[in-house]
């Protein structure tokens, strides 16, 4: 893979991680309220898959979607302002953390009811089919969403009508606090696609290059008229489900194994032997943080030096400082504006 792309991935992942940690900090300081679901650990999935898509493709995302929006090149300050509920936010402060929308970038929303992304993506896919365009919908969902009726209903319709939808499962093995073995009879999500004759693969979601490569070929296949496709990325979230969740239900060894943050790696591995993470989780390198893994690879291949990484981090720090300052100084929408917004689509109609 070429140097520039790998560097881009690194920058994207560092930005993603730093944005989320900054959001957590703003939340802890009371600047952001409401639900806040963060992405650390899963960065390779959003970065690898969204960078494989074309600007004309559509993204439909979940309530854990800040990073999808960032990688779709929505300005960090507009996302931060949305978390603050300000009028300069990407959804004008009317959506919030779980409802980021950007029409220009075909970012079709984050959805807060698990399983809603499926029919929305199917509908956009229907629209693409209707207009005979070479576009694809990237539909994100977690492992917890596959037991909703909409997963099965929408996959069936997508297959039946050959809708150009790429279903992307971010399998982090937990639906809030319930581990996948306790919520799904079949824990390999990709196997479920076989019920609808949709081709599917299970891929290491901690390796950004693999994510990119598999997404790219899946998109090519769909664009060529092959109908829907499903990719299951095995990943892990380092934090709890949301800021309100300390994540106490997970074995510490499992968290450390994925995070690679424990200074005493041997001890971690020893612990993990007694209290093993799920089989699928072991598929990725248990010692490495997803971003550190990418950094180390780049060092080894001579793609970058320690200073390059430090420079990127400094740039990102500045962007985030500006984003927070922008969010803090932005105005809120007035109630009059909100009421106008609620009625604007029939402003030209005579109702009575």
């Amino acid at each position, binding site marked *: 893979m070429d140097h520039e792309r790998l560097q881009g991935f690194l920058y994207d992942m560092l930005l993603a991680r730093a944005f989320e940690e900054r959001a957590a900090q703003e939340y802890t300081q009371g600047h952001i309220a409401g639900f806040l679901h963060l992405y650390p650990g899963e960065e390779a999935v959003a970065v690898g898959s969204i960078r494989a898509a074309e600007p004309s493709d559509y993204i439909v995302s979940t309530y854990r979607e800040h990073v999808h929006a960032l990688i779709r090149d929505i300005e960090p300050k507009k996302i931060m302002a949305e978390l603050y509920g300000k009028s300069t936010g990407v959804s004008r*402060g009317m959506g919030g953390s779980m409802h980021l929308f950007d029409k220009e970038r075909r970012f079709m929303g984050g959805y807060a009811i698990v399983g*809603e992304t499926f029919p929305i993506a199917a509908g956009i896919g*229907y629209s*693409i089919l209707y207009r005979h365009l070479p576009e694809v919908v990237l539909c994100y969902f977690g492992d917890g969403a596959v037991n909703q009726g909409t997963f099965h209903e929408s996959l*069936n319709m997508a297959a*039946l009508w050959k809708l150009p939808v790429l279903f992307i499962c971010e399998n982090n093995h937990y639906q809030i606090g319930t581990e996948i073995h306790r919520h799904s009879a079949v824990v390999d999500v990709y196997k479920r696609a076989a019920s609808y004759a949709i081709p599917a693969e299970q891929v290491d979601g901690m390796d950004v290059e693999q994510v990119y490569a598999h997404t790219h070929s899946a998109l090519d296949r769909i664009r060529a008229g092959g109908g829907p496709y499903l990719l299951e990325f095995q990943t892990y979230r380092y934090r709890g489900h949301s800021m309100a969740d300390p994540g106490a239900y997970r074995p510490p060894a499992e968290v450390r194994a994925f995070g690679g943050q424990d200074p005493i790696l041997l001890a971690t591995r020893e612990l993990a032997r007694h209290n093993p993470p799920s089989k699928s989780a072991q598929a990725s390198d248990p010692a490495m943080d997803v971003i550190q893994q990418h950094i180390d690879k780049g060092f080894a291949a001579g793609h970058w030096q320690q200073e390059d990484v430090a420079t990127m981090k400094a740039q990102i720090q500045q962007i985030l400082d500006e984003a927070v300052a922008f969010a803090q100084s932005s105005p809120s929408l007035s109630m009059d504006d909100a009421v106008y917004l609620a009625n604007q689509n029939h402003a030209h*109609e005579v*109702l009575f």
Partner: protein
Amino acid sequence: MDENLFYWQAVNIALDRAMEEDPDVFVMGEDVGLYGGTYRATENLMAKYGELRVRDTPISENSFTGLGVGAAMTGLRPLIEIMTLNFALLALDSIVNLAAKIPFMSGGQFPVPLTIRMPGGVAKQLGAQHSQRLEHTLMNVPGLRIAVPFTPQDAYGQLRQAIRSNDPIIVLEHDLLYFSKGAVDLDAQAPPMHRAIVRRAGTDITCAAYSLMVAEALAAAETLKESGISMEVIDLRSLSPIDWKCLQQSVEKTHHMIIAEEDSGFAGAGAELAATVQERCFYSLDAPVSRVAGMNIPIPFNAALESAAIPHAADIVVAAKKMLLERSQTS
């Protein structure tokens, strides 16, 4: 030019014309294509417009309704038919959380020009699961508009307006209206979608009704005339928003008001009507607003009990006489 049409034919022509005029309009639902719709409303459309624009769906109400929302977000104008309103309970997430909220939550970036048609109401011994309307459930959702056409003319006109609108709109039809007949002028300028219409003028008492209940109210007015009582009948035509001005003008004239609704009265559409009319017109009213509504039980299958569980013209007559009699006794 006026044509005498069945209600279902008026719906059918509305769909046909909308599809002819605008290539972005498509129809989707269970058995809307090859079968032509359970009430024939989509008859012949598939032959004329093809499968992409007239799509038979699997039995997946929540997802094909949600699919309509996704398609609408990208500029198409989907017409979703839900075979009966009772199945819409399975699609409530798509209606309430998606269609009604996306235009607002997206900061105005994504209008949802979606129309959902569905029949409901008590028909002939369909059992409790197929004998309800649920308009109250949908009325309580900001972001939705609800039309309840009673005449074939309105079935045509309001559906055309709904499809042209950029808002998500629910068109509630009634099982027993599809084979009612009426004059339809396809080229007439339709009144605004949410304007209430006085179907029969009167001076002593007002009866506000919608959908099939307008027929009962009109029959009641005819009976009351024999007793020298002049009842005004208002066809609301819309349940969200509601034409309060029309109701207010009528109450200021008659000083008495009855609301007729088929579904259970408890927390029903009539509760909203009664509360608001009393807030707005308290000093014009000579008696409390009265509701003639369905009983608060699941609709029985047994024919006699089924009929007894919902209001008829006779019940409206009794309520009107009682209200006016009490008034004359106290004055």
